């Protein structure tokens, strides 16, 4: 074959590219931030304490189940909960892109040689479970109900309506998680993306409007993914800090 004898400007191999820009910055940042989050969430899961203070409950342990009396070693309220949001993010179409690039290096960046030459299977074999992202979504929608309920509860100080900085933090966390969840690709498909002919399908007009609204949010799904991830960490750090006494919650009302 002719293409066997001619030399080529770029050959196969991890990292091989003619790109001159700093293509490795993006994956490196993703790698660092996601690793940082995983380390933080793991430490907090095994810490097993400081998930709640006053009317506040950390999103890492909501809904709260006391695990002390179960007698299962190492089990904490956060370990019971974290797999659900964890799987939602793990199977998220955006995070998949992020970690396939930054961790799996398939490929690390566009037009840069990738890893796994000769044994790449994509999402066909080991990763075929990614097709069930929608089930993680169903749980995520349920968890939104719990989290907004936590926000409502955070306004109740021994039966009296009140407002602390903690409630504002929880509110922001709920708001960004709601944007993240409702901009999900599977949600877009669920509310109307699966319809071929809106003008003739049952409830077609409604589904078209829902699909259009989710499509608008979906454009910023990546931004919501990062902001809401930071939001969860900040919310947990805040509640842990008031629970340990490191800082004082400020009552506004």
């Amino acid at each position, binding site marked *: 074959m002719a293409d066997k004898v001619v*030399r080529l400007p*770029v050959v196969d191999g991890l990292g091989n590219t003619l790109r001159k820009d700093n293509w490795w910055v993006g994956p490196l940042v993703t790698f660092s931030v996601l690793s940082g989050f995983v380390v933080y969430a793991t430490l907090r899961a095994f810490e097993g304490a400081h998930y709640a203070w006053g009317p506040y409950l950390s999103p890492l342990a909501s809904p709260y189940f006391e695990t002390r009396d179960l007698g299962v070693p190492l089990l904490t309220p956060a370990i019971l909960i974290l797999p659900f949001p964890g799987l939602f993010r793990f199977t998220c179409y955006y995070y998949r892109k992020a970690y396939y690039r930054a961790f799996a290096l398939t490929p690390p960046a566009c037009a840069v040689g*990738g890893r796994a030459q000769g044994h*790449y299977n994509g999402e066909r074999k080991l990763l*075929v479970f990614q097709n069930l992202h929608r089930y993680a979504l169903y749980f995520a929608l349920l968890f939104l109900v719990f989290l907004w309920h936590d926000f409502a509860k955070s306004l109740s100080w021994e039966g009296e309506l009140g407002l602390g900085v903690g409630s504002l933090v929880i509110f922001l966390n709920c708001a960004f998680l709601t944007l993240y969840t409702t901009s999900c*690709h599977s949600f877009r498909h669920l509310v109307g993306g699966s319809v071929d002919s809106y003008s003739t399908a049952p409830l077609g007009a409604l589904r078209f409007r829902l699909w259009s609204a989710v499509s608008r949010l979906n454009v910023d799904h990546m931004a919501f993914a990062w902001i809401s991830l930071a939001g969860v960490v900040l919310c947990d750090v805040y509640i842990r800090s008031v629970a340990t006494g490191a800082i004082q919650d400020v009552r506004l009302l």
Partner: protein
Amino acid sequence: MAHEREGAGSSATKATLKIWRADAEVAGSGELVAYEVETYPGMVVLDAIHAVQAKQAPDLAVRWNCKAGRCGSCSAEINGKPKLLCMTRMSTFAPAEPIVVTPMKTWPLIKDLVTDVSHNYRVAKKIPPFAPRPRDADGRWRMQQEDIDRIQEFRKCIECFLCQDVCHVLRDHHETEEFVGPRFLIHLATLDMHPLDTVDRRPMIKDEFGIGYCNITRCCTEVCPEHIVLTDNGIIPLKERVADDFYDPLRWIARKLFPPKHKKRLPVLPDAEPARPLGVPAPANRAETVDAEE
């Protein structure tokens, strides 16, 4: 190499192009050759290549046609990034740095910047064509704008095959027979989402066309000169549709309990398909699988 600027008063600036020169007929050929060209405002890389062709290397091969970003002929890689030569301005590069122009990596090289993209035309032929439902009683087909909105985006495609070039499944892993590639996935999305179409291509999308190879890393979207959001608007919705039919256990039960009334039919594959002569089991298996599921 130091280069002497022209005297003050001359507005001419120069740029260096490093162009891949190779000939598939000449064993062992292939090297970057530097050429210097005068630049002018509004100049695009294709202009610079034409300048090289006119004055320095008349045998330099480059494919082009419209010079307006419409025909999709002039695809190549500039400083390692897949781009249209005619839509990339020289002013986007630092003047001191040489601009490296190479052919698309994914396709067999013919000469210099020209590659053999005919694989893509063979893939296109494998896709069962649009088959609309019968006309209404008055002889018309009816559909509404909202039914068709979403797929108009994909019709902007100029078939430059830059997305096919950058897709790592084709570029790094050479799964050209197992995976149709992003350009054809959005074509399949156009057909699957079409309000009038009657063919169920999803079994093929999953198996022959290999949608599972795509790991949605979005490079196709990054390079598309028509700014088609291939991944988010085409491939991911298609993955969700394939998941509906093949991976979702609740949907499977629902289909068993309430069989869908308007079922699309499986494609009738052409008899003379060279890649799959009659009697090869793939199509028969596919029909059986679907019958068993519905």
